[in-house]
């Protein structure tokens, strides 16, 4: 059990949690027998399964070898459309981002007479991921409006029309780039930090500075800090510092927030040090989100694992349990077919590993609470405090962050760490046990949820 696992199924957007064409698909099929593979060569099903297997285990070279073989197979036309459309293969290709191949295989079926809403949606989603937004919208418009589980699609289509800047992140709304400071706290994640910085370096934005705090790392993080200016390029100012000891996540973020002068920044972003991938337009998406609804305090993205299983997508709290501890519903474990790619202020808090704050928010609600050291619950506590102070927050699921989330890995089997996590959620439960605490947050969320559902994801002043 970890912090993101839910006990109940509160569903803020009113959508069906089983949404997604092949969610019910099992992983029961095993890779084909070795004999068959030796005879016929490795097929797409095998290669997809093996690639994902190696990806999950971090066996990079073997993963890349499978990928290369798969790409060669796809390029040579050696895999039939029928084979690619087998549920397991289709899902795997989607996880591996092989959208061109999917487009070719799906197109004839999704546009043909045998198509159903699931196939139509998925084909549209593949087109959307290929950047062919207009075609995607055309295909999606054929998804029947009353089909079960596609409530989210109505919201997405509506928001594409209303808020293209925040959804697509194509260009900044407004003439001048506001100054953004990106804060990264890191500890012993040298290879991951490199990936995070490589993604950050591709950010389609010029007016940002990067602050990296090394929280007492024992690995080669110091090297990355030295190389950071080169990794991020000459246009980005980089500030780094290494601490002699690990001060934990909340104190580390507080250090980042207070040790440097951020008064020139209009927005402050916090990024985790183990983000494996995000798109260059993430910051424009986030900044444009602030234009969606005036007065937002913060915006957060969607986090998924490398296997596209959701970690956090619209996060809500559950009422405290009998022992006083609190739990959450974050859609964790759902396969990300795009069903969470929308804007929503229903969320009780935003995920702390990829978010953007109005700078003044920290003056108003304070810094992060060090009782949640070394981690677990830090951003939730801060998000709840923003809510309790009357601020509105926005989830933007169109900005997807692939997150290693090493802090949760193996948590359920590691009693000391599990105890830390449960201890923090007990602390959190007690901290807001009063009538102005969780009860008020949940009550207010139900109001936002109703408004969101009524307006199909269009944000009006009425709710303010």
């Amino acid at each position, binding site marked *: 059990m970890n912090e993101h696992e839910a006990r109940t199924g509160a569903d803020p957007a009113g959508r069906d949690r089983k949404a997604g064409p092949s969610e019910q698909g099992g992983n029961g099929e095993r890779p084909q027998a070795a004999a068959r593979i030796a005879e016929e060569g490795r097929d797409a099903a095998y290669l997809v399964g093996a690639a994902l297997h190696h990806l999950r285990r971090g066996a990079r070279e073997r993963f890349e070898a499978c990928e290369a073989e798969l790409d060669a197979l796809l390029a040579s036309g050696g895999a039939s459309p029928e084979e690619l459309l087998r549920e397991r293969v289709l899902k795997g290709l989607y996880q591996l981002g092989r959208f061109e191949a999917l487009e070719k295989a799906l197109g004839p079926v999704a546009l043909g007479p045998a198509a159903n809403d699931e196939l139509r949606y998925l084909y549209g989603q593949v087109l959307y991921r290929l950047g062919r937004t207009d075609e995607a919208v055309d295909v999606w418009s054929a998804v029947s409006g009353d089909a079960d589980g596609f409530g989210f699609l109505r919201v997405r289509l509506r928001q594409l029309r209303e808020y293209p800047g925040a959804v697509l992140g194509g260009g900044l709304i407004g003439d001048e780039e506001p100054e953004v400071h990106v804060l990264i706290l890191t500890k012993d994640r040298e290879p991951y930090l490199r990936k995070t910085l490589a993604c950050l370096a591709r950010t389609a934005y010029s007016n940002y500075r990067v602050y990296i705090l090394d929280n007492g790392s024992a690995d080669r993080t110091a090297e990355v800090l030295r190389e950071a200016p080169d990794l991020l390029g000459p246009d980005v100012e980089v500030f780094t510092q290494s*601490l*002699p*000891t*690990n*001060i*934990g996540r*909340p*104190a580390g973020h*507080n*250090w980042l*927030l*207070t*040790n440097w002068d951020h008064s020139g920044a209009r927005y402050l972003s916090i990024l985790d040090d183990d983000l494996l991938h995000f798109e260059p337009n993430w910051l424009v998406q986030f900044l444009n989100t602030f234009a969606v609804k005036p007065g937002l305090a913060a915006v957060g993205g969607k986090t998924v694992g490398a296997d596209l299983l959701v970690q956090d997508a619209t996060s809500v709290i559950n009422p405290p349990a009998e*022992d*006083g501890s609190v739990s959450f519903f974050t859609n964790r474990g759902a396969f990300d077919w795009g069903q969470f790619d929308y804007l929503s202020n229903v969320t009780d808090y935003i995920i702390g590993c990829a978010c953007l704050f109005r700078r003044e928010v920290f003056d108003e609600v304070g*810094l992060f609470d*060090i*009782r*949640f*050291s*070394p981690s677990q619950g830090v951003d939730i506590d801060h998000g709840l405090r923003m809510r309790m102070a009357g601020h509105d927050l926005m989830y933007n699921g169109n900005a997807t962050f692939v997150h290693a989330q090493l802090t949760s890995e193996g948590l359920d089997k590691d*009693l*000391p760490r*599990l*105890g*830390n996590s*449960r*201890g*923090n*959620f*007990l*602390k*959190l*439960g*007690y*901290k807001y*046990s*009063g009538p102005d605490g969780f009860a008020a947050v949940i009550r207010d969320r139900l109001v936002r949820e109703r408004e969101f559902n009524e307006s199909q994801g269009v944000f009006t002043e009425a709710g303010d």
Partner: protein
Amino acid sequence: MFEDYMRIFQSGLTGQLKRMTNPQVCYRLRNHLSSFHLDPIVGSCYLNRLLKSGDGFDQESAFWGRYVVDKFLQRMPFEPRVLEVGELFMPDGPVPGLRALVAAGEAPQEAWQSVPGAEGTPEERERGRRALAFLVKQHPSCLSAAQRILEYCRRDALDPGRYLTALRVPAQAEPAWRRALLQHYAQVGLDAKALEMWESLGRGDLDETTLNLAAEVFVRQGDRDRAVALYERSLALDKLQTPARLRLAELRAPFAPDPALVGERKVCVYLYTWNKAQVFAETLDSLSRTRLGGARIKVLLNGCTDDSRAVAEAARAKFPDNDFEIIETPVNIGAPAARNWLINHEDTWKADYTAFLDDDVTIQEDWLEQFLTVMESDQGIGVVGAKVVSPETPPRLQYLYRFVDLATDEMFKMSLEAPISEYDVGLYDYVRPARSVMGCQHLFRTEALRQAPQFDIRFSPSQVDDIEHDLQLCLKGFKVMYTGLVTCIHHQSSGVGQQASSMTLAKMGNALGNDLKLCFKHVPNQRKLARMDGLGLVAEHVFDPLGEPVSPARAGD
């Protein structure tokens, strides 16, 4: 598992004892007694449990039942319900007579209704005392009310005289009443009156609880020989009193600190503080008046936004012989991280020993030589701590030492840190091993810090981190020593507040959360921790009542 933990944890001592078998209860009691004299609060928890022995009284639980009743009645001789139980256990002594006297003088039920409990505010207790005094006026022989007056006065360290003017003590109850008064005066620091009572008591009227308290009165009078004699008599009455045995040993052969060590050993003294400028100034002032030799002092200002910086700068001049370094962090990083920050300083590894001091303490002039002398007595000692008391007069025991109380499949719990709600009258002035000492004034051997260099930041902002670090040391085989001859006055209790406001609920959650973290962090060490009980520490001082040899092997019962 967690759910069980929370239920057991929140049920307190009473709830925990309920779940235990008779042998487990007796073992836990003996563990407690190997550390502390039995106070009435802890005593009543055990008594209630032993009286509800579902499987009947075996020999061992019958022995301890009688033992606890006896101890309780020595402190509270006129408690009607305990007297009833006492009569069952001790039908031949004075108990049946006392019970009859108390019953005869008892006020009717309705007379008690306007008496508030003893646990409230001082104002509520004052109302209670007045109500009780009125009750005694109506019922002059109501000994249970007189005893309540003593307890309500003890809580506020008052002379009970003015509330007892109407009391008429029956002649047969007179020795018991005088013992109670002597104990009262001795506890609240009214030594002259205690001595008066002492003179009025016959030699045969004395129980061990009274003898121990009287002995400490004589220590304060400078009459150590007399104190030794009284402790000897006390132990002749009950040889199971480990603290009395340790105290007697100390009185016979007082611990002799070696002042030269302060100049001979390299010591670092580390402090960290967060926005307590005023009391921090007093702490530094107190430190400057102690004998430090050439100790290197480092002060970490933990994200202070008040005058702490100026306080630290101004204090520099008070330490002309010491390197005095000020470290500032931009934010509060919490106690464990602050400690680690300081430990990570290269000077730590150049020193022989490193002390940590809280930012709100008043310390004793010779603390360092005392600690160093203890340290040098055994290379296996990892940490040495002090006797921590409250700043009141007389001071209350805040924190003595702990041992592992429970380490089972469903629970890991450290013992109480001191008897509940007792004054510091000298009963614990000795040096002894423990499993954990208070983190507000303690000294580490450098090798111990090398092997356990981290206070765990999961216990941020504070609480438990020092206990858990001591456990790390125990698990690495280091000894932990309590030095009751060094008194540390701690100006602020960091414990959980008793009031149920939402503010303290948040604090309570922090404490509960940290306790849960402690428990589960050490699940993998459960077997080793089970051996870190109290009995195993002072085996030579513990006598088995049933005549069987005591061995640490019984710890796993």
